[in-house]
Every structure is written in structure tokens, then in C-alpha cells.
């Protein structure tokens, strides 16, 4: 059997640049959902400690180097950039999520303005600092929004909706560019 070709959700999509801000598709090689069983919080933290991580609080992303653990909902986080450490499956349900999500990245001076069109969320630095994560609707899609830098964000949506998600954010950037040109 020859190897099956792998394709990302937005395969071939060129980055979009407007007003010094870039929207691009991110790559997810490894992503596993971690859902600790009841009463196993300390045990989970002990295992994660080996990676320099702990289970994140609601709305939080914790990182150690390139390995990140992002809160995504009640009692669940996604581990990115590493395989689940040995022993974690004893205390938490682990499920591969790498193929289920599309990741979009946006970085630049109008990233906040562009995102505050489709996302009904306060992205002022004080309310949504670096490392903050939220489950928020991206118009009619459920998304995970994470601030990765002062002007940089990561957006995750279900893979099948990647094109719509791209369109919504790209349109917001187009509109901001047209506004800037007009003023």
C-alpha cells in the first residue's frame, strides 16, 4: 500500500496580509485531549509536572517550551506539541484531536480589531492577556481563541468549518483595510 497523502484543512491557502497583519493556517502535528477522571487532579498534575506543565484553570493556557496545554472546556484541555506522557492515561481520558481541528493564526497590529468583528469577546489587553484562552462563538461556529502574543492569536475551529472561519476573519481584515484606505 503506497502512503496516503495528508492534507491540512486549508491545504494550499496562501497567508492573507492586510494592514501589516497576517492570517495564516497553523500546523497541528500532535494534539490530544486530556480529561482527568474525578478526583484525579493531583495525580494528573504530578504526571504533567514531568513536562513542566500542570492542568490549566478555566480560560488558561500553560506552556513549557513548545509544549502547551490549553483549557478547552469543562474538565478538558488539549495537549499540543507532545505525546501524552506515560502514565497519564491512568488518570485521564486521552483522545487524539490532531485531525479534528483547523488552526488559524493571526498576528499584527489590527489582529484585535479584526477578531472583534466576528468574536463577541473583550480582547482588550487587560481583559484578555497573553495566555488567556476562551471558548467563544466565531459568528455561528464554536471556536477556541487563544492569545499567544501581544498582537497574536490562535483560533481553532472544527476542521470541516475551516473555510468559513477563514472567510469570516479575512472579510473582517478586508473591511478594516477598506476603512483605513477611506479615512
Amino acid at each position, binding site marked *: *500500500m503506497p502512503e496516503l497523502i*495528508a492534507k491540512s484543512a486549508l491545504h494550499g491557502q496562501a497567508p492573507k496580509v492586510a494592514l501589516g497583519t497576517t492570517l495564516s493556517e497553523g500546523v497541528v502535528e500532535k494534539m490530544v485531549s486530556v480529561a482527568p477522571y474525578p478526583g484525579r487532579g493531583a495525580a494528573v498534575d504530578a504526571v504533567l509536572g514531568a513536562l513542566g506543565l500542570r492542568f490549566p484553570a478555566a480560560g488558561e493556557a500553560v506552556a513549557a517550551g513548545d509544549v502547551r496545554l490549553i483549557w478547552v472546556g469543562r474538565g478538558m484541555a488539549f495537549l499540543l506539541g507532545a505525546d501524552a506522557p506515560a502514565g497519564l492515561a491512568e488518570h485521564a481520558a486521552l483522545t487524539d484531536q490532531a485531525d479534528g481541528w483547523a488552526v488559524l493564526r493571526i498576528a499584527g497590529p489590527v489582529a484585535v480589531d479584526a477578531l472583534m468583528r466576528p468574536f463577541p469577546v473583550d480582547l482588550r489587553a487587560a481583559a484578555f492577556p497573553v495566555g488567556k484562552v476562551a471558548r467563544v462563538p466565531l459568528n455561528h461556529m464554536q471556536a477556541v481563541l487563544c492569545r499567544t502574543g501581544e498582537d497574536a492569536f490562535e483560533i481553532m475551529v472544527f476542521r470541516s468549518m475551516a*473555510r468559513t472561519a477563514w472567510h469570516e476573519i479575512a472579510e473582517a481584515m478586508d473591511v478594516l483595510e477598506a476603512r483605513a484606505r477611506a479615512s
Partner: protein
Amino acid sequence: MRLEGKGLVDRGAPVSFTFDGRSYMGFAGDTLASALLANDVRLVGRSFKYHRPRGILTAGSEEPNALVEVVEGNQQTPNVRATVQEVFDGLVARSQNRFPSLSFDVMGVNDLLSPFFSAGFYYKTFMWPRPFWEKLYEPLIRRAAGLGRLSGRHDEAQYEKAWAFCDVLVIGSGPAGLMAALTAAQAGADVILAEEDARMGGRLLSENCRVDGQPGADWAEAVLDELRGMPNVRLMARTTVTGAYDDGTFGALERVGLHRAPAPHLPRECFWRIVAGQAVLAAGALERAVGFPDNDRPGIMLASAVRSYLHRYGVVAGQRVAVLANNDGARATARDLMAAGVKVVGILDTRPDASAVEDCPVYLNAQVTGTAGRTGLRSVSFRHAGGAAVLEVDLLAVSGGWNPTVHLTCHMNGRPLWREDIAAFVPSPGAVPRLTAAGACNGAFSTAGCLREGRDAALVALAALGRAASDVALPVAEDAPYAITPFWETPGVEGRQWLDFANDVTTKDVKLSAQENFRSVEHMKRYTTQGMAPDQGKNSNVAALAVLADATGRGIPQTGTTTFRPPFVPTSIAAMGAGGRGAGFAPQRFLTSDQASRDRGAPMIEAGLWYRPSYFPKPGEATWLESCNREVLMVRESVGVADVSTLGKIDIQGRDAARFLDLVYTNTFSTLPVGRVRYGLMLREDGHVLDDGTTARLGEQHYLMTTTTAAAGLVMRHLDFVHQAFCADWDVRFVSVTEGWAQFAVAGPKARELLATLLGEVPALPFMGVADVALGSVKGRLFRISFSGEEGYEIAVPTRHGEALFRDLLARAETMGGGPYGMEALNVLRIEKGFITHAEIHGRTTAFDIGMEKMVSAKKDCIGKAAAARPGMVGPEREQLVGLKATGAMTAGAHLFVPGERVHRETDQGYVTSVCWSPVMGAHLALGFLKNGRARHGERVRVVDHLRKIDVVAEVCDPVFHDREGVKLRA
């Protein structure tokens, strides 16, 4: 007429625009209204009902008369207020509700017939015969009355919606708003200052006033400069706050591209949702008119508007001006005009005790008894303390006092309070939580009062936010008391005194309403239509209820106001629903096989937001049915491939996973061996079927549930509910993996042969088995399950490999004489096999109804079990799943009757849920529900669909038409 050296328009930037086909010049900074007045155009519209000639009354968004159509390509926007629309090069505007032209409108005959058209006329006159109202009277009346016209085309222009968050939202940028914004901003709060006008400054731009010794407009500009330099301040001009909602949320409409030529991606409007910790309402006040005969002629204008046109735009709308007022404030109009060299022929003051000292004649106790000039004011007749007189004037500035703009404070059911001293309604404090009203909208009518209240409101907001206030000095400004004696209408005169210009309502209509016993202000509004036009009564509400109060012998506070509701200004649905038109209405979900299916010309249909191939046409096939028939026979005789990735997939793990499944499914999963799959049925708490699907046991503590496509989200929500509500402490966790796996059905007698070429060796799977498989280095799963009735497999790989596998499977299938099949064939195959979908489990059917009551385990409890056993949920009176076979086509939605019986709701025996033409059986098949149906196999029923004119006789049979013993799928 434009005055040299006056106004804030940019004289260095002339612009050209057209109105009713004629070309005019204006300047950047002009509104259409000011530019038309500068060009001496006074007649701009026809009234709604009587087609009376109308001019410009105001200088703001409350304008009731000057409504025009703005034309843009093949689109036109009706009811644009000329007082809001800014002029730009290439603007095309035209008047509306006139034929053939604005100056000669044949429908003006309505005005001569007006004695017949008083309020309530239509209701009384056109009652009989009743069907005529809808078919004849209403269309005729609507054609005669009316405002602008729509293009009739989709509005494909760009619109935008956006969110904004701040600590303090300041609504309005007059003296109160500027002081509030400055005070809050200097304390470090995040401030949004929203202003409806294109230019900030409010009345400071329209009055001859001084603040801290500077002209008001200069002071405003200096404050704005300071605000612009602060990173915590956002200035939003051309943005009208339209509504106040819960939790400090406000709606706001920004005019983004309406004041310039269209450009790619430039939105026409943006609808903002602004969430504010605190808000300061500094929306100002609206001047009100006075009732006198024929007070609606072009050339009769609010006194404040006359000053706006003078100071803001350097325009006067006439050569000989008179002022009619009941308050001191309007005197400024006469003084400012005279200072600008305009002839003021007199001030008509309705008060007997006002000062008569001015540089022009002052007539006290004056009442206008009539006006002349059909398309433009020529003269005013009036009586006064010294007798009666006629003044030749072409502009009459009118002031009946001011109404604070209380609207937003009423959006959460607050009622304004009447203040006798200023004869006006003011906001009731606390009517909108976290909002403080300041300045003229709070009844403070002096500049100094506005500045002070603005600052104080910001201090209130800062205190509530827990912020230390900065020390902001109050500028010095005029602080004259507001002296007014109410004057609503002129007593003892003939002729119509207009209240609601936009809807052609007179004082007489209001009195008639009271006389007909519509005495409540809300009833008066409905009876007369006062306040129901685009201006929503901004110009007329208070005067109308004053007249009503008088007519009913009550006071104004007892009469009360009607309810002010959002939006404050007309707001386009296109802006509120920006991006939601056409494909933007909902997310689109695409399969990994999407491009491969489209490459083969498959029409896509949407199912649960997914786009799925309907059928795969081959050359020579003229209809979908031909393709569908071929695909069905292909699966029955050879092999077919279909993308079934849309089915919901839920990964369930934990020591209590089996226990959890036993609770949510009617049947038992704890006994399912590892490596096997079981069909499961799920009930709602009320005992009706929620969903069905297969669940595989991948490990001792690891299951994979599949759901139907349509109910994937619903089932996930149900599991979350059951888990959180009934067994939160169980050792079970689950997460959706629907999107993580691309899964393809391979079905037909040659299915195993096809898979053998792909996998080398097909695991020896029994029917309803599952195994891990390897495709090169890719790990996949192979299920032996069938939704077609043939030997069937579903092969799943991580989604990133989906497209490659689909194309590979198709190539192999086609080499073997098979190929892809779409939703149509999939549906026929499952109907032939009697498999249900949500067409059958539509929310009102039970396990008993679909013949699966034996699947409700007697050995354990499950969600919905008790409710499903209630009386009436089982028994012969229930409509039960049956198959129907006929020689003529049936339709889903048709109802079933006993042949020979009357076709009537009371003799209804059931209904059809799914239909198809079966190329295998050579017959029309259907699934449906028939009363006591399982006992009636072999009977004949009449299938009737009145909507689609279907009336055929069908044979009732078992719902499984194909391979009833299941030999083929177990092969």
C-alpha cells in the same frame, strides 16, 4: 443661500451632486439638506398621506419631512434623511412619493379630499365587503400613500458588525458629552465617545456661544484634540447609539461608507454592540414645533435648525425671516440672523409677559392664524396683543420649547418624568442600570449646566467603577435660565394644525381620537398613527399627548407617553445581520471528499451544514433518478463507495463507560465484547426516540459511539446533560471525534474484494465487528456494518488522509465495475432495507412505534424508560411503522386513509415519512406510520397528499422490503 464667512464647511472642497436629476454644488461638510438650502431648494418631499409639499424642518436625524431616495448603481435606499446624508461628489438623490414630479404631484388631490381622510377613515369606510380590504382597498391605499421605494433586488453591498468594550460609554458629544468623556478619560478609564453627527461638538457647532472665552466650536475642537491624543479614548463619529440592552450592552449604527462613493469592501454601515461598564447619556434635546394652521409649509423650520444652518453650514433658508416662539432661547435665532445681515421682520412671542426689547419688532401674545405659499412660505398671518397683521416672510423659525432626548432611558421599560418648570419629560433616574443622563437630555438647557452635569455624570461613573477621579476644571459658559410658557396649538382658528408631519396627523385627529373614546395615549397613537412614521414621533409625541391631555381633561403627567423602543433611528436589517446573507447565513462544513465529488459533477445538498453529494451523474444520464437507479443497482450487484464522515462520533472512556452507555441506551452495552459493534437506541427523558446509531467497543473501558448526522450535536448535549445531572461522579469522560476521522462506506457483494486490494488482507470480521487496520503507516479502523442491506464495511482514517483514501477507493471501485454513490441512492438503499432515519424518528415516535420495543431492556433502567411505559405510549391506538408499496408515486407528508372512507382529519389513519422508487423491486416504496399498522400487513390504504395532488392506493407491508432475513449483510 450661502453666507460668506459663516459656517464650518470646507469652502476649499466643493462637491457636485444631483437631486431629482439636477446638478448642484455643495461643500465638504454639508448635509444634503444644507446644500439644498444653500442652492435655494426649499421643496424636497411630499407628505405620506396627503402629498402635501414639504421642506426641511430640522437639522438632525429626527427629520420628518426631508426623506429622499439615494441611488447607488442598481440599488436605491429609501427614506434617507437629507439632514443626515452628507454630500459627496457623485451623490445621486431624488425625492419620493410624488408623481409625475415633486412640484406637480397628481396625488396632491388627496389633500383636497382631506375632509374625508381623517383618522380612522379607512377602518370605517373600507370594512365591507370584507375580502375587498386585502385584495382591493389596501393595495390602492398603499399605492397612494407611502414613502420611498426599494430596488426589489438583493442588497449585495458590504455591511459590517462589530463588538466594542469600554469602561465608560459617552453617548453624544455636545458640551455634556465632551466634559464627561474628558473627565472619564483623564482618570484613565477606557472611553468610547459616540456621536451621531459626522462632526463632534453637538450644539456647540450650531450656536453662537462661548466656552472659556473661546467660540464653542473652538473649545470643542480643543477638547477633541486632547481626547484624540489619549490611547484610552475611542472617538466614534457618525455612530448613533440605537438601543440600551441588558448588562450595559448598547446597539449602535455607524455610517461608514454612506458619505462617500462606494469602494470595494468598504461597508455602508456597521452595527456595533458596545458593552460598557458605565454609560453617560448626553444625547441632548430636540426642539419641538408649535401648532398653527398650515404649519407644515416649506420655509417653516425649527428655530434651532435655522441657527444650525447659519452657524454650522453658513446657510440661511430665506431672505425675510420671522421667529415664532414660546421661550427665551429662540430669541438667539433672531439676534444671530440679524448679526449675519439677514432681515428679521419680527418675533412673534406667544407669551403675553415676555420682553419686547430686541433689535426687531416683537409681537407679544402672538398667535399665527394662517400661512400662505403652497410650495414655499410667502406670508404669515397672526394676531397679537396689539391686533392682527400679515408679514411677508419666506422663512419662519419656530420654537415650542425642547424635549430632552430621553429615548434610551426608556428602552428597559423606564418611564420619563414630567417637569413642569421646563414643560418637558426628563429621564427617571436609574431607568437603565449603570447609565447616567447628563445635560440637555436630563433637562439642563444652559451650556454651563450641560458642562457641569457632564462632568458630574462621569464622576458618578468613575466612582461606580472604583476609579479615582481626576480634577477637571469646569469651563465658564452662559448659564441663562430657561424661560418657557407651554404653547401647543392655536385656539379658535380654522385650518389644520399639523403635529406629526411624517404621518400627516393633525391636532384635530388627536381630538377625534379622544372623542371616539380612544383616550389612552397608546390607543390614540394606533388610532391616528401619530408617532408611527420613520421619526417615531420624535417631533410630535409630546405635543400630541399635550393635545390629548387637554381633550381628555387630564394633565400631561397623567396622560403619560407611549413607549419608546429601540432602535432610536431607522436601522437597516442589512447592518444588524451583516455577513448573514446567502452563504453567510450559516457555516459551511466540507468533507475531505468534497473536491473529488465536485470533480465528478455531483450536485451537493446541505445536510446538517455539511455539503454532501446528491448523486454522481454519468454521461447520458438526463435526470437524477437515472443516476440514482444506477447507483442503487451498482451497490446491490457490485460495490459502491460513499463518504459517511458526517455521522457524529463520540469517544467514550473510563471505568464507568459501559455503565454510562447502559444508562443512555435502551439496550445493553456492558455485555458487548471488545471488537464488536452494537446498534443502539436512545430515548429522550419523555420516552420518545432521540437518536439511533452503532457503538463499538474498542477496549474494556473504551467505546466509540456514532450518531446520526443531524443529531450529532443534540446527542452530545444529551450526554453532557445526563452526565452532569445524574452521574457527575462516575469515572467516564467523552469528547467528540466526528471531525477527527474520515469514514467511507464500502458496500456491495464485491466490498470485501475491494478492501482486499487495499489492505492486502481483510481482517476476518463477523457482521458487526471492528478491527484496527494499517494503510501503509496510517492507522485506521475497519467496521463491518451496513446501512444498505448489502455486505458493508466502513473504513476510517485520520481526517488528513481522507481525500487520498476516498480517491483511492473510487479508483478501485470503478476498476471493479462499481463507483461512488450519493445521498439519493443511500436513501433508496435504506428504505428498501427498512432502516429508519430522522424522517421516522422525528421526535414524536416511540420505540414501540418503530417496532423496537424489544430493544428496551427489561433488565436495567435507562433514560426515558419509565416515560415510554406511560399509558398511551404503547398499544394498538399508536401509529406504527409500516412499509407501503404502490404502483404510483407517493410523497412524504401524505396521509393515510381506509379506501372508501371519507378523507377527513377524523378518519386519518397515519402518514408517510420516506418514499422512493425502488429499481430493485420495480415499485414505489414508502415508510410510514399507520394506526395499529403491524397488525394490518396485507391491507390496502389510500395515500392522499392534497398539497401535491397525490391520491394512490398502496399495500401495507413489513418495512423491510429487501433481504428480510439479513443473509446478504451477514455473507
